């Protein structure tokens, strides 16, 4: 080791050009890799673990269904303006339709528009032929002359009674044949009750819009939302009422906001960290150049981590890259620690190369083990199954290893060989005073710190004071998110609009798809009757069954169409119906007759529907870009939020023999709670076991090992207690904080205990290490604390939790670890030495 430290000192002082050459080569190589290979994965869902069908389902629904390009606009007016809103809504819808980025708009039930009815009539024939044989036979029986007569007589009677039924029936289905085939569309009208477009108090109107966004990347989302926001600024022309808000939500709105807020978070937290870390470093050492060296070395660590990460993973998750800021917080410790020792030696009159060799010699081992524990701790994320977290773990492990190497080598290139010793150092003086007292009376300090830490651990254990765990999607929204506010206002105004559970089904062919949905629909209908679910909708009637179509066409050949036409004409005349109102009935009869011929080829109904038809909103809910990939929706009796609900749905919804993937945001996040808790407990425990084993090997001393393990337990306990008392909630991502605190906390212990164990001049060496540990701790707390300014609540939650944990780790190391080590294993001849004797000994 001595040889290594002297070699490094030689290289950075005598062979500076060579060292700079190596630095430039590493930087150039990493930059070339980054520039030529960089591929950013913007999918936030990749942060969720693999191996969960619900997560995979969510990814499929997010990427392969049209809803990814759907935005929901909402107009929210004052209660006095509801009439004005009703009048303004069609104008707003027209303006939306005229936007270049808008493909179609749903401004109301398509059943209420002549276009919507005409569109339905276009696709009626294939859907009619798709009916199950018994339903088809029942429908087709209405073409018997006597039934035609009876039906029209009854309709005439209904008109006389003022019933709205004849108007509805005759406009859509004059023969009464196609209504059963169009049930899913009629069901959509009923769906208005579950997914309304107008709030009960009429102050809010919704306009789902499909956009022509070419891709779902973050940059495309930002570009689209820029256009949408321009539209928003001019959309309220002609509105003469009170305050009217235009709200927009949807995937693109969220992705745009999240990506922009991530950029903001990276800038703000990076600048915040640099400012805070710089301030702490300058206050501690009164030097600028080493600060620049530290920044440069950290930047190089990040570049190395990103470049190696790219070579391993081929693409990097944007969120993971953002999390690399953690690396800065961790790497800073090494620089402060080693520079603290270097400066102390310089102040004592040692030469530049000797001070470098001494600091590496004394702290190299501690830094090596510190880096090892942190790297292994983060590599434990490989067990998390989440590609985002795996990347994060590997990147930090690489980065922290690089930091350990760079801070003990090239960092010294930035330290000038001639520096004036500092005349006064109040921090060091305060630390020396503390060390003196601590060595003198360790039990007095323990008498204060021990009860405080025990009290906090008690609070942490007490189940009466709960630690909140938030597992909903809202916990991941950026603060002040416009899309989030829009969604919460919509949910507030329309509480029935809670998110359904998705049932995703993929089939090999059309017939299999139809058979699958037939089985599921029957099964879910039974569940609905039993009260297990509130309602459901499936693409069953829209999934064509070639067998049914073939059979029903053969059946059509037996119908006497001439007789049906004659009966219809006669019934119209008899009941004084207007012939014009029944033109479409005669057309349908013609179509049916033609389709019965064996060589007639039925066109797929999706091709018959115009692209701007509002019915696509319904169809796109069910069918993915691949028509054999489909989704059904189950509205639960209550929003899914508990494990019991999720387990019941997972047990009840699938039907035997039908491969179905259950998903949806609420369902998935509830599904992930056990994983997240397992993350918290299992992987943290695994890491603790590793740390404990490493410490045992490192110290080879039971008492010191016990002291260190107790310190870690106290620090984590105090962290949990503070989170409970300050109401800082845990979420799916900030459970990482425990791992970070363990990794960094164990380093603090290693730094001070190794010095305590191996020093021959305890008071001097302890003061020399405690000062940098305090500074490193403060910079880490400041660095993580600055994450609290992030817009992303998961990032800010992680920052706050880490800052709390590190505060207690640092406090426990200084006020518990050291005095406990001193008390457990006194190194001085007499712990009761007085101050004068101590000073004499130093001299």
């Amino acid at each position: 080791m001595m040889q290594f430290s002297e070699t490094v000192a030689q290289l950075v002082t005598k062979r500076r050009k060579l060292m700079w050459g190596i630095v430039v080569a590493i930087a150039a190589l990493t930059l070339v890799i980054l520039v030529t290979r960089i591929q950013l994965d913007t999918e936030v869902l990749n942060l969720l673990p693999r191996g969960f069908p619900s997560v995979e389902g969510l990814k499929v629904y997010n990427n392969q269904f049209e809803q990814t390009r759907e935005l929901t606009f909402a107009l929210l007016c004052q209660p006095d303006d509801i009439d004005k809103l009703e009048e303004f809504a069609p104008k707003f819808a027209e303006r939306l339709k005229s936007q270049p980025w808008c493909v179609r708009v749903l401004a109301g039930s398509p059943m209420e528009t002549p276009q919507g009815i005409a569109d339905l009539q276009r696709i009626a024939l294939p859907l009619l032929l798709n009916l199950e044989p018994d339903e088809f036979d029942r429908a087709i029986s209405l073409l018997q002359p006597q039934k035609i007569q009876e039906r029209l007589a009854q309709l005439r009677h209904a008109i006389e009674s003022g019933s709205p039924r004849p108007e509805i029936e005759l406009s859509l289905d004059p023969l009464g044949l196609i209504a059963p085939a169009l049930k899913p569309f009629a069901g959509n009208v009923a769906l208005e009750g579950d997914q309304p477009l107008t709030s009960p108090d009429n102050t809010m109107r919704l306009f789902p819009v499909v956009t022509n966004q070419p891709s779902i990347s973050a940059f495309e989302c930002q570009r689209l939302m820029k256009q949408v926001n321009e539209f928003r600024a001019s959309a309220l022309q002609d509105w003469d009422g009170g305050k009217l808000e235009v709200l927009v939500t949807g995937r693109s709105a969220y992705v745009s906001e999240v990506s922009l807020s991530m950029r903001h978070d990276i800038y703000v937290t990076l600048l915040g960290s640099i400012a805070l870390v710089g301030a702490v470093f300058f206050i501690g050492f009164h030097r600028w150049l080493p600060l620049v060296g530290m920044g440069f070395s950290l930047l190089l660590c990040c570049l190395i981590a990103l470049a190696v990460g790219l070579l391993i993973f081929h693409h990097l998750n944007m969120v993971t890259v953002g999390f690399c800021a953690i690396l800065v917080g961790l790497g800073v410790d090494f620089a402060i620690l080693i520079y603290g020792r270097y400066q102390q030696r310089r102040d004592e009159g040692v030469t530049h190369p000797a001070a470098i060799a001494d600091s590496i010699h004394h702290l190299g081992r501690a830094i090596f083990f510190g880096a090892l524990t942190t790297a292994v701790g983060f590599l434990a994320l490989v067990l998390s199954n989440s590609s985002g977290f795996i990347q994060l773990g590997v990147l930090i492990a690489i980065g922290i290893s690089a930091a350990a190497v760079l801070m003990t080598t090239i960092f010294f290139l930035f330290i000038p060989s001639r520096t004036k010793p500092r005349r006064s150092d109040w921090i060091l003086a305060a630390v020396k005073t503390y060390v003196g007292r601590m060595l003198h009376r360790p039990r007095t300090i323990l008498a204060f710190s021990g009860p405080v830490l025990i009290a906090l651990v008690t609070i942490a254990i007490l189940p009466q004071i709960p630690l909140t765990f938030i597992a909903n999607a809202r916990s991941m929204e950026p603060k002040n998110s416009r899309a989030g506010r829009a969604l919460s206002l919509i949910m507030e105004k329309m509480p029935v609009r809670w998110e359904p559970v998705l049932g995703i089904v993929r089939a090999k062919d059309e017939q299999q798809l139809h058979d699958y949905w037939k089985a599921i629909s029957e099964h879910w209908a039974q569940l609905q009757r039993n009260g297990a679910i509130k309602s459901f909708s499936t693409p069953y009637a829209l999934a064509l069954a070639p067998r049914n179509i073939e059979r029903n066409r053969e059946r059509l050949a037996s119908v006497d169409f001439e007789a049906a036409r004659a009966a219809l004409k006669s019934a119209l005349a008899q009941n004084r119906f207007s012939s014009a109102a029944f033109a479409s009935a005669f057309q349908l009869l013609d179509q049916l007759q033609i389709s019965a011929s064996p060589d007639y080829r039925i066109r797929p109904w999706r091709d018959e529907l115009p692209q701007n038809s509002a019915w696509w909103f319904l169809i796109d809910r069910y069918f993915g870009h691949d028509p054999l990939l489909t989704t059904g929706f189950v509205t639960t009796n209550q929003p899914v939020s508990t494990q019991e609900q999720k387990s019941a749905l997972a047990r009840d919804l699938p039907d035997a023999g039908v491969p179905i993937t259950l998903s949806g945001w609420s369902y998935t996040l509830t599904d992930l709670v056990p994983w997240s808790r397992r993350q918290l407990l299992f992987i943290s425990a695994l890491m603790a076991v590793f740390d404990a084993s490493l410490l045992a090997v490192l110290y080879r001393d039971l008492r010191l090992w016990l002291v260190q393990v107790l310190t870690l337990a106290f620090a984590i306990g105090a962290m949990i207690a503070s989170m409970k008392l300050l109401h800082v909630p845990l979420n799916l991502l900030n459970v990482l904080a425990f791992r970070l605190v363990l990794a960094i906390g164990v380093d603090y212990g290693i730094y001070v205990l190794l010095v305590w164990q191996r020093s021959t001049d305890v008071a001097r060496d302890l003061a020399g290490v405690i000062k940098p540990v305090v500074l490193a701790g403060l910079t880490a707390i400041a660095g993580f604390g600055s994450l609290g300014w992030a817009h992303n609540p998961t990032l800010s939650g992680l920052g706050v939790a880490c800052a709390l944990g590190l505060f207690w780790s640092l406090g426990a190391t200084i006020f518990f670890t050291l005095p406990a080590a001193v008390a457990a294993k006194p190194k001085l001849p007499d712990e009761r030495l007085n101050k004068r004797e101590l000073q004499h000994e130093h001299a």
Partner: protein
Amino acid sequence: MNFSTNTRKIFIFAFLVALSCLSARAEPLSPDEVKTLLARVREKRATTPNLQADFQERRKVHLLDEPIATSGKVWFQAPNKFRRENKGNAPSVTVSDGQQLWIYYPKFKSAERYSLAKRSPLDAGVTALTAGLSLQNLESNYHVTGSKEGDHVILELQPRVPSLRRLLQRLEITLDSDLHVVQTRMLQPNGDEIVTTYANHGHAPLPANVFEFTPPAGTDITTPLGK
């Protein structure tokens, strides 16, 4: 100046005819008069919330080549309960308790059920249908103008609310001197026109079961709008 007896008679007759014509011509009511009238109507409805009357109706429907004439009896209780029984060859009973609307066809043993709650598409239609009977919220739902014809007052209502405008172009309500509705004339945007004449008004209390409907056993029940 001397007039012959015949000439004088002719003059007097012409004067009386002119006078009667003048008196029979509709005189527009000022906005204040309309307001006063509506206030009187509200007062009367507050004291007599129940109404029953015989009716005769003439419908011109675009689905049919000829107008339809029906007659029957109607019962109404403010604010929104009503019952209407059509007589003749096509009898039917329409009953609403404000939440649900039933139309029963005894001849076919069939019934239709509509829900009026939760933003039913029928809400506006029922509001328009009952406006002539309830005479409630007229100013908030319609632009109201009025005119006087003899001892009758004609209120002309044009819907303010777009949902009503989709169903109703104009509604005319004729009131007699006792503020009984004697005729309503409804013009719809699709060209349909319904003229209903009411007679034999009564305001006796009505039992609750008038506005309740239980389909007789064996009735085929449909819900054309779902739910």
